[in-house]
């Protein structure tokens, strides 16, 4: 029975989960949640995700939320399918975890704030805080300098194989390069750009792009 993914194909966190399921060849069904209509804040949804956020997965009678917990669960569940997504031994796994945390704490907040101020608020008819967006951009420059240095030493963030750590960055960088119009942050850095070209050309990501109609 296919895994049900409750979310939207445009939501970065839903994309993180779908990208992982596509990488692993796990059958899934995307159940659209109408965020514009506030479906995620209604009691029927809050029963499944009390913080009122997408995505949520339903795998038989097992439910899970938080995209980074979901992807870790599936990589563990199907470790025999694409074993290197979480590393092949304890130390490799630690490196994957480290860069997943970097994505969550040093990278994501900046991208999220940028996209909120430059794209989402204006779409809702509210003014974005350009000063805040600019400050995020400057901080992101420093963070991406660290990535540039890291990716001069190895092909991917956690080492020489594509892992969850790289996958986790895909949705955020896509937003950065498209709706937020900040592609220069990536393209100006040789190693980061090379890495982005590589990971965004993976068949699973391209499939997701098609699904999302980009």
């Amino acid at each position, binding site marked *: 029975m296919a895994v049900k993914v409750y979310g939207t194909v445009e939501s970065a966190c839903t994309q993180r989960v779908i990208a992982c399921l596509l990488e692993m060849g796990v059958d899934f069904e995307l159940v659209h949640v109408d965020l514009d209509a506030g479906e995620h804040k209604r009691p029927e949804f809050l029963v499944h995700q*009390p*913080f009122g956020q997408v995505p949520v997965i339903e795998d038989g009678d*097992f439910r*899970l*939320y*938080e*995209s*980074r*917990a979901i992807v*870790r*669960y599936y990589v*563990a*569940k199907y470790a025999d399918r694409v074993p290197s997504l979480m590393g092949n031994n*304890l*130390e490799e*796994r*630690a*490196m994957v*975890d*480290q860069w*997943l*945390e*970097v994505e*969550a*704490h*040093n990278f994501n*907040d900046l991208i999220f704030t940028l996209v909120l101020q430059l794209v989402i608020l204006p779409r809702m008819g509210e003014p974005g805080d350009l000063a805040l967006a600019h400050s995020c951009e400057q901080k992101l420059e420093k*963070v991406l300098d*660290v990535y540039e*240095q*890291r990716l001069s030493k190895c092909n991917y963030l956690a080492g020489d194989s594509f892992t969850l750590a790289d996958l986790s960055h895909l949705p955020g960088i896509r937003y950065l390069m498209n709706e937020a119009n900040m592609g220069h942050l990536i393209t100006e850095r040789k190693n980061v750009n090379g890495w982005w070209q590589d990971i965004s050309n993976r068949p699973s990501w391209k499939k997701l792009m098609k699904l999302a109609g980009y």
Partner: protein
Amino acid sequence: MAMKLYGLPMSTCTTRVMACLHEKGVDFELVPVNLGTGEHKQPPFLSKNPFGQIPVLEDGDLTLFESRAITAYVAEKCKETGTDLMRHTNPKEAAMVKVWMEVESQTFNPAISPIVLEYVIGPSMGKKTEQAVVDGCMGKLGQVLDVYESRLSTCKYLAGDFYSMADLHHLPFMHYFMTTPCASMVKDRPHVMAWWQDISSRPAFKKMVGAMTFG
């Protein structure tokens, strides 16, 4: 050879790791990093963590940063000893632990850390408390704690009826938060308060809490 933990005994992220090391009974040496002189923003520290943040763990020739990656590594390496923090033999329990670890990381931490920064850490560095920042966070934190209250009325700990890494990750910020004027937000929620009293009375936490003060 004992693990080396670079950090400070009152730092939230360092103590997150220390709590895990104590729960697992792991020998480690705490190597202080002088934030006051900017030691963390220069070589050689930058070669350990290019983001210039504490803590960093050195275990043999493995160097790791990001406190939540470090605790995951320690728990995995020492999964057969000490407290069973990750429930590794039960995939569904393990998944629930991960859900609430993510909740702490993505939802709880952003709501609570500005309050701790404004009331505790900032003043220790001579900064004035910005009430507007605190007020802005209290609404969000209240909503989060309402979810926690509801969750903890159905089970004793966040991931289920067992103490886990999900609870442990909350220790440092909860500790400092309870010293602020906003502590009533926890005290007013009986299940959250009972949970806090339980997890903060664990020996592993009591071992280090004495040093957890910004003076």
